[in-house]
């Protein structure tokens, strides 16, 4: 079992390394500089994939939370926790790279526009999810509370996605779907999305294994000191 886990880990680690190297090559050498914004537009090739992976993470939390409430199997709770932890890391990076991009383009680091605010609310929701899961004294009760937040909190994901069409925002619209982008830019974006998705899988697998080991340590300690 441990060997199988190590094999998957090595495959994901190797694939992640290759894809990330390819992404960096494409972002800094292959793709042409965008005319209007200049080099700063290259943040786009990580900002969008980071947001995509954050949404994917919270979707996995949503599905696992439903499955936990339905089946009451701890594996779904552990998977939901792992995915939310990784999702928070990626959302944090979205919230960091966004202002770095905004400052030279908009002239401000932050503005309380619909998409930015909804993203911040999303980040806070999943921080609350982890806090409740960690600090509720009774294990099963904490898992149940967290699962409810994992389901209700996901409502905010489509709001973040649709904010640019529902309200007038400072954030630019999704030009990929409306006007399309140059093929080298699209290719770079797709490679980057793939790289970050594989990285997400690697991190979730690692986090899931750690949380399983934590549970095993607890079980063994209980048997030893009983």
């Amino acid at each position, binding site marked *: 079992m441990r060997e199988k886990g190590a094999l998957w880990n090595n495959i994901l680690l190797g694939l992640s390394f290759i894809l990330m190297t390819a992404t960096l090559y494409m972002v800094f050498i292959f793709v042409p500089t965008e005319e209007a914004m200049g080099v700063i537009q290259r943040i786009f090739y990580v900002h969008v994939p980071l947001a995509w992976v954050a949404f994917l993470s919270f979707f996995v939390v949503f599905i696992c939370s439903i499955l936990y409430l339905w089946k009451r199997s701890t594996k779904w709770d552990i998977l939901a926790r792992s995915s939310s932890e990784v999702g928070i890391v990626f959302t944090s990076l979205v919230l960091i790279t966004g202002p770095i*991009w905004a*400052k030279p383009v908009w002239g401000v680091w932050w503005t309380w526009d619909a998409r930015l605010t909804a993203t911040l609310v999303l980040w806070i929701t999943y921080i609350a999810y982890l806090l409740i899961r960690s600090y509720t004294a009774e294990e099963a009760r904490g898992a149940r509370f967290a699962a409810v937040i994992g389901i209700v909190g996901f409502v905010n994901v489509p709001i973040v996605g649709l904010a640019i069409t529902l309200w007038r925002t400072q954030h630019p619209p999704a030009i990929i779907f409306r006007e399309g982008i140059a093929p080298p830019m699209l290719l770079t974006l797709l490679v980057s999305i793939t790289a970050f998705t594989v990285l997400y899988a690697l991190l979730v697998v*690692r986090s899931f294994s750690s949380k399983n080991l934590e549970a095993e340590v607890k079980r063994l300690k209980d048997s030893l000191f009983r």
Partner: protein
Amino acid sequence: MENAGYLFAAYTIIWALVFGYTLSLYRKQKKLQRDVDLLKENLEEK
């Protein structure tokens, strides 16, 4: 190369955070695996 500093800052922060988080996960898992092995040994001796 106007605004190259911002671009450099963004990529540095991303890689520092991702690398730090990945490393912390690997270290945590290694420590937990050691704890599991030790506890199993102790249980067998008991």
